[in-house]
């Protein structure tokens, strides 16, 4: 006896001919491509510990605003160039539609 699905009426006679005649299930090949890093630049530092920030977002904003104020005023040209490696602090924005 061939495959269970073999011999059934089908539009194209070549359909279902790839199946194994003994009826054993063919192991599926993994279709997804796995990413394997070729470098270790993105590894976290060995002593890194991830914890929850104790301060809630409101208090973080208070500290942030205080830090902004405490930084001395810079010349206009300097302000346009963001420092390398540090995030540009977003100005307070109101909701826009």
């Amino acid at each position, binding site marked *: 006896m061939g495959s269970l699905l073999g011999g059934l009426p089908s539009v194209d006679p070549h359909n279902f001919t790839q199946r194994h005649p003994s009826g054993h299930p063919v192991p599926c090949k993994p279709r997804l491509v796995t990413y394997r890093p070729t470098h270790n630049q993105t590894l976290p530092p060995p002593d890194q510990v991830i914890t929850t920030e104790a301060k809630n977002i*409101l*208090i973080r904003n*208070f500290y942030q605003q*205080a830090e902004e*104020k405490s930084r*001395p*005023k810079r010349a206009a040209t300097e302000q346009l160039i963001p420092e390398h490696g540090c995030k540009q602090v977003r100005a*307070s924005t109101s909701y826009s539609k």
Partner: protein
Amino acid sequence: MIRNKKSFDSKVTFKTNNVASRIFERQIRTPAPGTSVHCARRFYENLVPRFTIYDVECPDHSFFKFTDDGQYFVSFSKNRQDLIVYRPKWLSYSCNVEDCDDTHELPPQAKRFESFFTQLYVQSLASCNELICKDFFLYMESNQFGIFATSTAQIQDARAADGAILGVPSFEKITIHLLRLEDGVKLDEKVFHNDCVNFTHNMGAFLYDDLLAVVSLRYQTIHILQIRDSGNLVDVRAIGAYCREDDELFINSSSQLSGNRGDLVDNGINHDQPNSNNSFLSGIKQRLLSFLFREIWSEETDQTQRIQCLKKKFYFHFQDYVDLVILKVQFLDRHHLLIKFGSVDIGGSRNTDQLPAFFAVYNMETTEIVAFYLNAAEKLYLLFERFCDHFHATSISSMYMNFISSHSNNIHALEQLKCMKNKATSASQFVKKMLSSLPLNCQSMSPSPYFDQSLFRFDEKLISATDRPRQSTDHPIRPRIRQRRWSEQKVFTFPVPSFFSIGSLLHPAVFVPASVVDEYSLPEIIFCKYLL
């Protein structure tokens, strides 16, 4: 990309208004992550009151408030000396008749007060010359503790005392009582002598988890107390003239060593505040002034500019800053306080919008001022607009308090706010008005799902989640259900008697607006019956 959102919704999630379908839906489908409470609350759209019982005869007490978990109903005796606590219980009645409607008669026990409330106990709080502060009640849900306050009458000619500021009334004895609400047993108390604490609408105290902050207006001190599980009120710190717990000891010992005071007799047991003897400002005032100084100093890099700035912004207003008084306080988290500073006149004035006031964020652990804003500061308003929920500092244990609608978590409330903002004639006046509610009153918002703006829509001027006295209205309040998929829009009517004077009390889960206490008439309770 959201395209054809409507058709997508109707194919994937079939939202029905029928309660039986909703229950079946709940059986077979898990709600989207993080929305289980919202899904449960949507059932309130099906549970709307349809019937009102008027003129229920009830005991002659001043009914005050339901606790936020709905377990107790707090009321005070008319003479404001006793506390009476009830347990709400609900009359359950079902109708077997088909087409049961509003005209169907309720059983006679539905019209009795005792069918809805069981009196648990009467506890005497105030002694003969004291009165209970009838606007003050804080509830600690984790242990079911209640916090009440009593005070003697105001002293008419309050004499100036060391450390006390002028212009603030004085009360001979103010007591904060800690009670276990389950049985009314008094656990502990904290007494303030010749002091002034503003207990109106919970303004003078703030409860966060197990920490209670009490503002002593007369001595300009913020007392931080901890409520232990055993029921003890423990002093943690007193912020005002001193910041850290051992500041007083340190200052006394160093002034003793430097020989500032030649008449020092009692070491360490003296009652003199250092401020009265030497000209140094200490405590939170010193922190505030040094913060302002450093802030202005760091604004400019050029030395001449710096000095000019300091002269203009700091030294010119120095005395005004020194004269600022602590008016109100709230917790932002366990370590941070939001303190409102102003002039002494604000304390008694009703119209606080026009007078200048300042807000400071203070870290209790590092004893540093983190931020300082004028009451018309746009930056502070933006934070209030975006993170309003975080100003309603709630403890982690009461989960439902996180679901109170505000303009930071509800799009409809935000639209209302935007409307008000656009209608405002002056932006700075609008900001001042919005910020005048800061610091927020503790436990002032009702967690009732009927105030959830994603479920119901109502006129905020007539009724609101905030516990405030409202004007009377002859027209019934008609909250409407927000969901408008079906043409038949469900609505229920909250009838308001004509002598509405103090405020409606809403049970956190069930719609029971109660009492309208007019001092000269008997209280009335209006119950609303549910009809599914």
